[in-house]
């Protein structure tokens, strides 16, 4: 393995290990509220926000894995996310190689 690749892997592992600090704050992004929060702020829940269900149920909603703590969840979610992006790009690279 090239030294630069090793550096990149270490960099990624450090970042993933730090993700639990990223989920310490409980607040959501401005506007990305749960329906109930709209009632609190706007006085009502807009119909589309109240009744729209996502087309696909998320496997790991809010990066929180059922049954395990938030620290383990953050690290696991970050690892899964990183590996998924890696897998898709790897597939794309192999596909392109074959096309060439």
């Amino acid at each position: 393995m090239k030294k630069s690749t090793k550096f990149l892997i270490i960099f990624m592992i450090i970042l993933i290990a730090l993700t639990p600090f990223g989920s310490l704050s409980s607040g959501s992004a401005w506007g990305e509220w749960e329906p109930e929060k709209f009632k609190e702020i706007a006085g009502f829940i807009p119909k589309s926000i109240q009744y729209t269900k996502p087309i696909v149920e998320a496997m790991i909603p809010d990066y929180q894995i059922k049954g395990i703590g938030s620290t383990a969840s953050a690290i696991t979610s970050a690892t899964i996310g990183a590996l998924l992006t890696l897998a898709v790009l790897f597939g794309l690279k192999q596909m392109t190689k074959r096309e060439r």
Partner: protein
Amino acid sequence: MHIPDGFVSPSTYIVSTVVAIPLLSIALKKTKEAINDESFALLSSLTAFSFIVMMFNIPIPGGTTGHAIGTATLSILFGPWIAAFCVSLTLFIQAIVFGDGGITVFGINSLAMGFTAAFSSHFAYKILGGKINNQVALFVSGWIGIVLASVIVAVVLGIQPLLGVDESGKPIYFPFGLNVTIPAIVGSHILFFGIAEGIATMLVVGFIEKIKAKSKQEALV
């Protein structure tokens, strides 16, 4: 900045999807041209970086949070099209697997955090790079990218009250107008998350350049 499902009208997400599809297919083509055994390690690390950096929620006064997006780093190192594709891939995984950002609104999120951020950071760095201190140029390029992405999100959400009301006259979709969304979303990105993206861009691009220089040196020895 990830808009969830149900927050915008079908007209909004249909138009955005129609705009995003041809752009994404160009971005895919450019990414395929750039991806090979040599570029793979860095490109995939930076895409993973974009995913991970979005998990670092920074609390700000007022009880809300936000995060950097990592688009500028990809854009400066690989170009805007590839950056837009890789960040869109991240957004897609976030939507499908983690329920972060809606699926119907994927096009909007991709246009904002992917394309808008990538191209504005790219042009900012093109204009500033080499003319001013490189650290400052990197910082400003990151800052401007995420701030302009936040403008898109703020405008898309802010026009929703005009796009549908129920029988009692209340908005069906996102209920706050531009007078609220612009200061809240764009303001917080100017003051806080833009700074985070600027610093992330500065640090990561700097780090990568250092690794590159080192491996070049080693190759020469």
